[in-house]
């Protein structure tokens, strides 16, 4: 007991002498483990999932979807290094001007919803025999930052909503996105 308290008092004495160094070290460790959360909360402006709970219906098979030949590309947008997932979701009956596209990324422990914005140069549906200009709005480009995804595999889902955000149709695709510590990979599934 005596020797234990001796060790304790020696350790305390040593720690007092090195207090500044210990504080600095702890601060650094604290920062390193929370830096990503700080970055995504206070600095990252684009490529974040939409906040709030989004209702999605059970799966429907009333739209066709597909991805670009290079589905995921690194892009710099608004001064930030992001990734863009490109594809289309073409409803069987609704004109593409009547709905908005959202992308759902689902892993074992998270479900994130991103907005799919119209790409600057829509060209994925040009080769369809029934192509018309309004189909361009069925194309999407989803910007996302790898910092908002934890390491793991995310199945891609496509959600169509009306202009007020009410869910219309929903499908899980067979494709997924994998985030490794420093890369993003698209894992293709069999497209319908």
């Amino acid at each position, binding site marked *: 007991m005596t020797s234990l308290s001796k060790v304790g008092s020696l350790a305390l004495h040593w720690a007092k002498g090195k207090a500044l160094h210990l504080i600095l070290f702890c601060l650094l460790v604290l920062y390193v483990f929370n830096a990503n959360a700080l970055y995504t909360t206070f600095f990252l402006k684009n490529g974040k999932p939409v906040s709030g709970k989004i209702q999605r219906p059970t799966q429907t098979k009333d739209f066709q979807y597909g991805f670009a030949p290079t589905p995921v590309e690194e892009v710099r947008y608004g*001064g930030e290094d992001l990734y863009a997932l490109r594809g289309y979701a073409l409803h069987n009956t609704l004109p593409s001007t009547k709905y908005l596209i959202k992308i759902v990324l689902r892993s074992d422990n998270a479900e994130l919803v991103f907005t799919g914005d119209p790409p600057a140069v829509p060209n994925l549906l040009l080769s369809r025999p029934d192509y018309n200009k309004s189909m361009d709005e069925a194309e999407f480009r989803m910007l996302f930052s790898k910092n908002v995804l934890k390491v793991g595999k995310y199945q891609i889902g496509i959600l169509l909503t009306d202009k007020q955000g009410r869910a219309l149709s929903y499908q899980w695709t067979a494709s997924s996105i994998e985030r490794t510590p420093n890369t993003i990979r698209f894992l293709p599934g069999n497209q319908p």
Partner: protein
Amino acid sequence: MTKHIKGFLLPVLIAFSPIIFLYSHNAKVLSIGNLVVPLLGSALFAAILYGLFYIFQREPVSASLSAVIFLLANFFYGSIYAYLLKKNRFPVEHFTLLPVVVYLACYAAYFFKKTIRPAIGEVIQTILLVGAVVMVGYNTAKVVPIEIRKANLSNTGPAPAASAALESPSKKYPDVYYVILDEYAGFDTIRQYWHENYVDSFEAFLKDNHFFYADQSRSHTSATILEVASRLNFQSYPDTTDQLSLVKAITDSKVMRLFKSYGYTTVAFSGPFPPYNADYNFGDASQVVPDNAVGTSEFQQMLIENSMLDAFSSALQNNTTSAKELDYIKYEFTKISSLSEVKSPKFVVAHLLFPHVPFVADKEGNVLDPMYQYNWNYYLGQHMYATRLAQELITRLLKNADPDNPPVIIIQSDHGARNEKRPTRDSIILDNFAQHYQNNILFALYLPGYDTAQLPRKIDPIDTFVIVMNHYLDAGIHADK
């Protein structure tokens, strides 16, 4: 005071070392002006470091050595970042790695001060100082003769008048425009690799405007310097030829001298090379990226990527760098067709670094983000825009032409698309890009009054000025191949 000078000098020289080393390996094609900002910046950085460490340590020798430790961390930061990124064991972000490296560097300096006795510190400082002086001195000594030779390149005298010109001074020679689109892929490459057909309309445009298009012409090599030197001197050069001799052959070429001897006013847009021995020079080599070595942008990018500045590269490389490059290219295209201040007959040689890297424009001519400057997926867009600019240039030249004495126009690429990996992290090349595409060039000739039916479709580009000068100037030239 001496201690402070010595203490300050060591980190400054250490900071200079990698910059001068990198420059000395690329001095033949870079402008000395490229050194100013990096040297001033690193001197300031070293001075601030020395000052900060002196404030905390109150000892010139240890402050000096601490600054050196920090500078070494700075030099290796980029490599550490790239290594960890490649290993992919844990997420690597500048916002975490930079504070950790700064923390470790400061503690390394702290422990150095705590454990090394002042006398030993002074010995280490002296050894390092001698080493830094030798390193900087050695690389500077390598640079000096190159700079002297570069300065002498344009100091050549005027060419004598040709006898034909003296005999008939009143003969009306046509203006001659020689436009080199650097790395412009020939039409076959665009059709075969990219399966794009926009070149069909450019080919039709050329034919509609009575251009002869040599669709089977190929460059001998994929090296700009060899190609341009050979075409401007009617002779081929072995690829072992000293680079400075080739630069001299380009800036003071036989073609330029011959045109001068016929009374031509000469104009040069020198592209990647030093100013030509011309009456008017519009090129600015410091603005553009040369061949065979890192260019202005790459030189700065490499310095940034290897230091702690890498963490701020997004902010440092905003769109203005690409916008500036693109503005310069557009200016050149416009200026070629508006040289009213230049007396005719004129010979205009315009070496345009377009669609050569850096990729700065999309197919519409919008400025691309600088991260794509060395990404070959963006070559096609730049090629499309180059095609549009070339077509507009030809239209303007023909519109402004004197109907009684129309100009000769040569639109040519030095070599085709090379799909070369560049020494920067953002460099991405294309898959399955055949080697032979790099020799597939654009070669179109507008030769008023010349029966182009006699020209073969696979004209050797070295014969370009043999054809032009023999027909329009009666120069009696033969190419030496």
